[in-house]
């Protein structure tokens, strides 16, 4: 018998409502919920094909222990014995601060809360973080600065179509997130001014009233004084209720977003100081994981620091994240490979699970329950659509057992109890376990915080270096083609082919330099140099080169060790002026 189970999509931060259609243990398809406030009957191609990764056979079905290059399936008991032996060994030799915990925006709020609680109360370590340290955390820190701490609900997808103007940072924040893009189209049809700020691509599209060419680093400077941008754009961006949409994963450093928020908020009329702020992410629970305390404690190290070659970390426990796909530097990869103990609890066989000393199978988001917080600050309940596969155990059970082996106990026996603790401990989430609508298909919107007074930090004037190319290194560590759920779907795997290694450049620039597609060039910056083939892309602006950040070897050769964002204390690559020569 076919069942139609209403739940929430697990690809991105929008949290669309969908039915997962199942027959026994088999996922047959999906259908968007028409009455859901986010999806309203619509999905993106990831959503429509979500059932394919639910059918994947590339799952971790039993615990695995690695001995040298060989991994063997073991029972949970044996895995627990090994985990106990390794963790107690590391703690007795180096102390609890030699252990790090990596939570995940691909886990529910409850599982993240548990993970954080496990780290602090069972392992007594403050080293807790997630891979959003390298893309996502900067945006959240900037927002926290602007909104005095707790984030709550900063925007609304259903009412974005009422915004008088919408500023989009990067063209990917549009069609890649279909319920948001859909509201942008509706706003455009109603006469709203849609303004795109994009430095990597010059693709004009009919719904943009204007395209600003500044990158986020330079945008606030351009918006600071009249004259730098056309007057009508200038006026449009000073209307109360305007939308600001961006992909959090691509924001760094935090100060760039802070400056922009300050400039925009200052210019809004006194009677309506609201912005409809949508902080998108390519992970489903960026907001929730952050709110649940997946960040370092006072004495703790963040993930960038944990994976520093000189850090004291000897053991790392990674939950539901393919770390190797999301690390921005080769030194971190090396450190990860050299750890005394790497534990991975995940669903699919990933590159990281293949180097882990111990692997634990956990259920997919479609196989368990719990809540996730979307980009609007809407907390929604996931419902189990499929039975757990193989011997997978949910984190509550697994962490409870590990805690027991270590002579400690987790304070919770059910997801409901964890939810109760979240609502008692995290003020913004107070309503989630008690409000009558907490179980409704549309979830609960957290309350909206008010922005602080304007921040007076000075905005840097952009540097311009005449005659040189600007090299942009966009953060692509979270690109869809690095997402295991995409790789497990036959259709999506074709839709998101892996990038060809190369530096993207404008075809006219290439002609001027007498370069052909695929030809190798030497790029020199003040930080280093790299030889790489070029890829011609007619959307790349003239005098611009684009190198996706996930080609880390090339990025490191030309941009050195990058910069460290003083607020997130994490690595990012600023734009560089470079020269290019034919080899």
């Amino acid at each position, binding site marked *: *018998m076919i069942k*139609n189970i*209403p739940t929430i999509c697990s690809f991105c931060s929008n949290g669309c409502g969908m*039915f997962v*259609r199942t027959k026994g243990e*088999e*996922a*047959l*398809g*999906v*259908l*968007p*919920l*028409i*009455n859901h406030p986010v999806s309203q*009957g*619509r*999905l*993106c*191609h990831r*959503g*429509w*094909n979500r*059932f*394919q990764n639910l*059918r*994947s*056979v*590339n799952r971790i079905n039993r615990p695995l222990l690695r001995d040298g290059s060989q991994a063997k399936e073991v029972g949970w008991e044996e895995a627990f014995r090994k985990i106990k032996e390794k963790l107690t060994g590391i703690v007795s030799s180096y102390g609890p601060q030699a252990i790090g915990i990596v939570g995940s925006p691909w886990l529910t709020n409850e599982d993240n809360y548990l993970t954080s609680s496990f780290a602090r109360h069972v392992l007594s370590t403050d080293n807790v973080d997630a891979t959003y340290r390298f893309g996502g955390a900067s945006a959240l820190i900037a927002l926290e600065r602007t909104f005095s701490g707790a984030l709550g609900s900063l925007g609304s997808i259903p009412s974005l179509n009422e915004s008088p103007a919408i500023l989009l940072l990067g063209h990917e924040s549009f*069609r890649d997130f*279909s*319920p948001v*893009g*859909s509201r942008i*189209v*509706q706003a455009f*049809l109603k006469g709203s001014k849609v303004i795109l700020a994009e430095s990597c691509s010059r693709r004009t*599209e*009919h*719904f943009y009233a204007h395209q600003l060419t500044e990158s986020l680093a330079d945008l606030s400077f351009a918006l600071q004084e009249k004259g730098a941008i056309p007057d009508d754009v200038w006026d449009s961006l000073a209307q109360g209720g305007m939308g600001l949409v961006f992909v959090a994963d691509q924001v760094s450093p935090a100060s760039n977003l802070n400056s922009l928020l300050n400039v925009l908020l200052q210019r809004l009329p006194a009677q309506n100081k609201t912005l409809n702020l949508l902080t998108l992410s390519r992970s489903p629970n960026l907001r929730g994981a952050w709110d649940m305390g997946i960040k370092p404690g006072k004495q703790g190290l963040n993930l960038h620091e944990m994976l520093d070659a000189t850090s004291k970390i000897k053991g790392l426990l990674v939950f539901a994240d393919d770390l190797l796909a999301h690390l921005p530097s080769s030194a971190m990869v090396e450190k990860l490979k050299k750890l005394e103990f790497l534990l991975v609890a995940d669903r699919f066989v990933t590159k990281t699970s293949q180097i882990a000393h111990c692997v634990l199978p956990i259920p997919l988001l479609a196989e368990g329950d719990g809540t996730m917080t979307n980009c609007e600050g809407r907390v929604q309940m996931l419902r189990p659509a499929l039975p757990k596969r193989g011997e997978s155990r949910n984190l509550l059970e697994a962490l409870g057992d590990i805690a027991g082996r270590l002579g400690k106990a987790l304070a919770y026996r059910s997801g409901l109890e964890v939810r109760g603790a979240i609502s008692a401990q995290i003020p913004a989430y107070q309503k989630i376990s008690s409000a009558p609508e907490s179980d409704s*298909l549309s979830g609960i919107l957290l309350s909206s915080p008010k922005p602080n007074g304007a921040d007076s930090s000075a905005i840097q004037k952009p540097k311009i270096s005449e005659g040189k190319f600007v090299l942009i290194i966009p953060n692509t560590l979270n690109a869809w083609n690095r997402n295991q759920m995409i790789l497990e779907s*036959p*259709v999506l795997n*074709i*839709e998101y*082919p892996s990038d060809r290694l190369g530096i993207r450049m404008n075809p006219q620039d290439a002609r001027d330099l007498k370069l052909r597609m695929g030809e190798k060039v030497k790029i020199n910056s003040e930080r280093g140099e790299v030889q790489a083939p070029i890829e011609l892309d007619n959307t790349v602006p003239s005098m611009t080169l684009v190198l996706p950040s996930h080609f880390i070897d090339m990025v490191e050769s030309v941009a050195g060790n990058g910069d460290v964002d003083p607020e997130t204390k994490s690595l990012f690559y600023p734009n560089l002026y470079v020269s290019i020569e034919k080899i």
Partner: protein
Amino acid sequence: MDTYLLKKTDLPRWVELIQKSYDVFAPSRVHGEVFFSPISFPPDLDLLTGTATLPYLPPKDFVFPQAEELFSFFQQGEQVKLEVPKISGRGTVVLGIRSCDISGISWMDKFYQENFKDFYYTRRRENLTFISIACNQPVKNCFCVCCEGGPFLDPEHNEFDIQLVDLKENYLVESKSEKGKKLIALAPELFLQSTPSAKEIRDQLEEKSRRSFLTEPTSYMSFAIRRITENSVPPEVWTELGERCFDDGGCTFVCPCCSCFGVAYLSEGGKGCHYRFWDSCDYSGFTREVSGHNPRAEKGERFKRRFYHKLSYQYVKRDGRIGCVGCGRCITACPGEVGMPAVVERIRNAKAQRNYQSGKPEESLG
């Protein structure tokens, strides 16, 4: 064709009798949304009236499921064994399907059964009987009247099993196919002789229904068919429409006429299966070749291709109708607000532009 009257109060009795030999599906609410589900008792009679009720998941799922295992394989000693999954031999009756969806099934029948008979489609289709209900009252997104998809099925021109017409107290029952007659024969005592006045009311209802479509989704189909057939839609219109397409595939998945599928293997430890799933011409990977070259890399080109297949005369001639039945599901599904009626309207609005085929100004055609 046979015509009868069936008292609405007798419908549950008839369904009960049908259930003895068939699985019966009817529209029902699942968390507030309508699906064809195994019929419950008492049936949701409010979904079986003359007002159009379209489950969002199109009934093509009965014959062409969103995902369907074609065969499984496993290693046995030296040999690899193949097994085609069995399906229930019991017949299925779908009650409460609408005229547009029956037109969609007829289109599917042509695609999957004309010339080459698709084994998986045919074995499901042969087991299926449809009892449709004519729409006395179209709803918000309906435009079947522009596509010959409804609101009533014409016994002379449309293929169907049984069509019910809601006459308030009774249904007028029009039974056309052998499969339909079999269902009537299960309870002949419930089917009363029809009257000339019932036929008259039926025709009046059909006429009234035809006049109650809303202006917004109803479309100048013939205009779009001509412009697409003669390739005179300005390319910039396709580019613009393509920019509004999100490549999500939603329109193709909910379309009762879209029949494209992809196939994939799932295999682990010497056993696995081969399955097919709904695919979409919206997707860039749909036409991309192994070399990496994509003949329709631009979205506007894919968009144009989709509507060419739906509306060009070449296909109308081959398939007997346009590839749209006017159910309006694509209006609900499209994040870019370019469902069929919006596209047809955009093409109509572009009429003052150059005629790209003849190279002559267009005014004379206007």
